[in-house]
């Protein structure tokens, strides 16, 4: 287990930098994590995705499929990669404080 510190934020993360205690998530944490994913600023668009992911996860207990994220947020896949250069799974889910997506690699 590693500790990630940024500004006032101090959280436990795994090797990939995913939060270990999702209940500690807040917007500050999100901003802090965003710095590790090549996101310079958390714009409205960034938050939209983050909150979509969090809502979905709360409701279903799983992360949505990528196609669903695009459909529901209105962003194309390209736009999502522009917002989160390491992609929806590694980038956006991490910032949103979700469990690390496993499944298919």
């Amino acid at each position: 287990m590693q500790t990630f510190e940024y500004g006032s934020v101090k959280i436990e993360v795994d090797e990939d930098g995913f939060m270990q205690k999702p209940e500690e998530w807040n917007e500050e944490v999100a901003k802090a994590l965003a710095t590790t994913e090549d996101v310079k600023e958390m714009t409205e668009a960034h938050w939209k995705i983050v909150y979509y992911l969090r809502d979905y996860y709360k409701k279903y207990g799983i992360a949505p499929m990528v196609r669903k994220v695009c459909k529901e947020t209105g962003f194309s896949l390209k736009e999502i990669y522009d917002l989160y250069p390491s992609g929806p799974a590694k980038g956006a889910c991490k910032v949103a404080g979700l469990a690390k997506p496993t499944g298919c690699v």
Partner: protein
Amino acid sequence: MPEKKRKTPKLDELEKGAWPSFVKEIKTAAEKNAMADDLLGQLERSYEEKIGHWKHGGIVGVLGYGGGVIGRYSDLPEEFPNVSHFHTMRINQPAGWFYTSDVLRKLCDIWEKHGSGLTNMHGSTGDLVFLGTKTDELEPTFKELTDLGFDLGGSGSDVRTPSCCCGMARCEWACYDTMALTYFLTMHYQDELHRPAFPYKWKFKMSGCPNDCVAAIARSDMSIIGTWRDDIQMDKAAVTEYAKSGMNIQKDVVGNCPAKCMEWDGKEIKIDNKACVKCMHCINAMPKALSPGKDRGACILIGAKAPIVEGALLSSVLIPFIKLEPPYTELIELVGKIHEVWSENGKNRERVGEFIQRVGMGNFLEAIGVEPIPEMVAHPRENPYVFYEEYFEEEDNNG
């Protein structure tokens, strides 16, 4: 660099014997590379304990891509710190796995600098696998690779790196240009290859003839296998040669024809080409005398996969025969429709072959706009459970 040599008594056993030794390879690399050396250590441990020492998963990559790197962390990072990170990079191989000494050396140079110095030539999907590096090295390696003209392959729920047999480059039986198509598809689907957005992985494999030298039918969601429509070409003189050389044409060639469509009268081979199922056997047996017809193309099959989780599948016929020439419009349209229908309706982690079984081949065909034909089935249904979608109402008396 390790000071003194590790003790690896178990692995040392695998340096013996006539087959080239992967342990020797790791040791060679370990001489100059700490990652390779810790790999050796951890592997020896696995051999002692009969268990792997890698943690589950890992999600790392290069910017802008969702696939191409398999994250891997040791569960013994204190003991083997140099493999605490040990990610593989999947490098998209050139179609047909052809290389020059020059380009290989340049690839080695990159990996010497940034990774373990170990590779797989190649991975089961076909990629050139760079075996083991740290997170920090991913971007720099990627940059050097792209500078050399290479790119990452697929991983995750994306188009996986397409691969193919050597086809027309070296085989007289290639019924279409497998390498050209592979290159074309790889380039056409760059976005889908690098940014996973499907329900699950999608593999293309291209074989030039029914011998299927890349095992396309067993392990690709879309298997494109060359075949022909007209008569087998025959060189009668060569047939005579084979007979003279002592070949038992009746027993070994004719007797093995699955369509029972050949006859041998001691002088000539007669083939009922209308009945021939293009199995390749007779051609394989007599390459100088027989070869596929001139009207060549491919059969497109769909849905192969490994057993997880509903049992393994072989691909099944979707388009019995198609001409495959640039710009491959028909094929691309077909794939587009399939991707659309599958992406829209597939469940998470549902391969297209499983998807088709779940929704029914008939419904799937309707959705992608392909007419059902008997070539698609081994045989029609045996059970009487037909889902008729409409019925007549009493009012509707002219039923």
